[in-house]
């Protein structure tokens, strides 16, 4: 039964757009992602649900990236994407397999007038970052290495330390505001583990 509960990658992610032509031209022509499907529909009868166009671009390995364009529906202020870290936390990161491929994407995008904002080597991925016509943050990266078992156990420990430190801070009427407190809590967890016989 557990086999039935295994997710098999991304079918689509979707975001709203208020720039129909620009979005189609960017994803289909600039990025070169095939347009593979489009739903155009009347509103669903729910309160104030406008008619819409919902379209999908092939982003490889069976995945697509999709957009909703709502007809006659003015963009609410709270959905205007602002180029700040909290808005940019919502982003799409596509995978390529090699550095050569990454650089080829960079060259393609720059030759079509897309500004590459950063090229950064993180712990596990080297990435380029850019924006679509909606201002949405996009990333293409290649994996620098595979995940190891230690990555998973270290992640568990980091989050345990962060959650426990945050809960302690809240009991005292505060908040977890600096990662140092979580790192110190993690250090204590590891020191305790090391003192136990292995």
């Amino acid at each position: 039964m557990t086999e039935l509960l295994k997710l098999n990658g991304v079918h689509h992610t979707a975001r709203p757009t208020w720039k129909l032509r620009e979005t189609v031209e960017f994803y289909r022509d600039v990025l070169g992602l095939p347009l593979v499907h489009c739903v155009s529909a009347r509103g669903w009868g729910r309160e104030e649900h406008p008619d819409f166009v919902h379209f999908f671009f092939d982003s490889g390995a069976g995945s697509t990236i999709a957009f909703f364009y709502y007809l006659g529906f003015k963009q609410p202020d709270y959905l205007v994407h602002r180029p700040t870290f909290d808005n940019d936390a919502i982003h799409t990161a596509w995978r390529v397999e090699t550095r050569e491929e990454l650089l080829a994407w960079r060259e393609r995008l720059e030759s079509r007038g897309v500004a590459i904002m950063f090229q950064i080597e993180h712990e596990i991925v080297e990435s380029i970052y850019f924006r679509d016509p909606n201002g949405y943050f996009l990333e293409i990266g290649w994996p620098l290495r595979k995940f190891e078992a230690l990555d998973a156990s270290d992640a568990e420990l980091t989050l345990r330390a962060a959650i426990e430190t945050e809960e302690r801070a809240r009991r005292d009427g505060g908040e977890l505001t600096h990662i140092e407190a979580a790192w110190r809590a993690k250090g204590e967890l590891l020191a305790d583990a090391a003192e136990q016989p292995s």
Partner: protein
Amino acid sequence: MSVTIFVPDIPEFLPLIRAAETVATCTVQRPRNGYWRVESEREISFSRRPLGLSPAIWNSALSGGFRGRIAEYGRDFMRIVSED
């Protein structure tokens, strides 16, 4: 008290270990449960540029956890000191 930095035994953090091994006041213990331990009586400091660490890795350099207190942690230099 003393200072201990736990460094995950994964490749991107190894420059920290290689640097700590050259410091006379530090001892480096081989990985146990996946973490190297860098220890010192009073303090441990690192400079980013000689380690060749990118800013992204530098900003996560203590993410394995530590015992002590951050006395300084800027763009290119960090100093961890004993709590007393």
